[in-house]
């Protein structure tokens, strides 16, 4: 079961990509691709890329060189789309807050530059897993991409937490899925680069395919399951402490709030 070309291995390589394609189709039918055009593109590019790679792996007449060339191309295109997707998510999370957009952009660019530097250093000092550059290259490239990706996502989450931004649920879900995939991939590639055992390599492959499957399920959940509509306050005199779940307005809450505001001034 936990071997290359087992049923589980085939399932984990093919199924998440098929689910992702179905999700993209659903987004197109429901018009949600207009809200998340880059995620829509990512869903198609990533899933088709992986399915082509799977086909290249199992078709006997595809040479090893051709397989690794397909992997290189897919990796470069996917990386480009992923970074544009992070930009889209940033816009969704910080866009509604005028006072934070500019600051956030400067900070994210700074974090990005530092991460590129760190990733280049890590790549320079990482052991080469295979003497053929066409094989070891993608490993290093993936490690570099996942390091930058997880760092950028962490920066977005930390900033959103610091400023207590009420980010929209779908963006948060897409970010979470990307982060799980990026972090698990980063860890597995780091271990794989230092490991020559084939059994361990297969286990790590299964682990990162499983993580990708979980990510696809998270994206599906956040995109397919509708968010509970928040209740609008009917009465304009509803107190500040009466949140969306708080039902009827409380006069006492208003008094407390006003008292606290007076204390705040003096």
């Amino acid at each position, binding site marked *: 079961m936990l071997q290359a070309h087992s049923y589980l291995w085939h399932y984990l390589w093919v199924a998440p990509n098929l689910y992702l394609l179905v999700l993209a189709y659903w987004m197109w039918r429901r018009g949600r691709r207009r809200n998340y055009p880059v995620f829509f593109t990512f869903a198609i590019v990533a899933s088709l890329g992986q399915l082509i790679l799977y086909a290249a792996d199992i078709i006997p007449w595809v040479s090893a060189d051709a397989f690794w060339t397909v992997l290189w191309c897919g990796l470069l295109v996917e990386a480009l789309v992923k970074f544009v997707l992070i930009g889209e998510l940033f816009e969704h999370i910080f866009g509604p807050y005028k006072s*934070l957009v500019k600051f956030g952009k400067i900070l994210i660019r700074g974090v990005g530059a530092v991460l590129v530097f760190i990733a280049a250093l890590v790549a320079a000092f990482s052991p080469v897993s295979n003497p053929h550059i066409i094989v070891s290259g993608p490993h290093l490239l993936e490690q570099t991409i996942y390091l930058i990706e*997880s760092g950028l996502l*962490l920066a977005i989450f930390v900033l959103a937490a610091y400023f207590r931004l009420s980010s929209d649920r779908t963006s948060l879900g897409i970010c979470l899925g990307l982060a799980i995939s990026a972090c698990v991939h980063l860890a597995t590639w780091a271990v794989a680069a230092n490991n020559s055992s084939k059994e361990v390599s297969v286990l790590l492959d299964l682990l990162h395919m499983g993580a990708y499957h979980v990510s696809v399920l998270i994206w599906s959940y956040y995109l397919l399951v509708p968010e509970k509509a928040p209740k609008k306050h009917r009465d304009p005199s509803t107190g500040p402490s009466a949140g969306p*779940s708080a039902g009827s307005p409380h006069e006492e809450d208003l*008094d*407390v709030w*006003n008292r606290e505001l007076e204390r705040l001034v003096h």
Partner: protein
Amino acid sequence: MTIAIILVVAALGTLIVILTFTVSQGLQSSGRTGPATEIRPMDVAAFRNLVDPAEDDYLRRRLPASDFRLVRRERLRAMAAYVQSAKRNAEVLVRIAQNSTLAADAQTAEAARRLEDHAHLLQRNCMFAIVKIYIALAWPNSSLAAAPVLQGYEELNHSAMLLGRLQNPAATMRI
């Protein structure tokens, strides 16, 4: 192998932080209670005195250098406590504003959005101010600009007052 261990630890740490944030975000939206009671009172006049460069100049002229550094560090510590308090109040006001942006009345919703904007601006200024204060603690003779925090805090007060008035026009408010 060392790089691999560092990367695995970094990846796990990142994942834990992100999952913690996601869970806390979910809990936050499901259980919001009266945040107004969490606002801590702040003596703005005393804070203004602390950040006034003229006060620092006066102390610099009057005190010997070593005494000045001691006093300045004490003042910086007090300033840090004020800024932390302002940041906490801004966080509470962000939550109040987020609750009120759902108000049916457009004017109230707009005031809530403005309050949220001002509160975020203050949070950002507090972040910078804290960094500057800690740098100044190491180098007490440097000039320090915590004035944006004060200015932001006063703007925040005005926004909060406006939202309060819109939500309860009958209540008497001193601005």
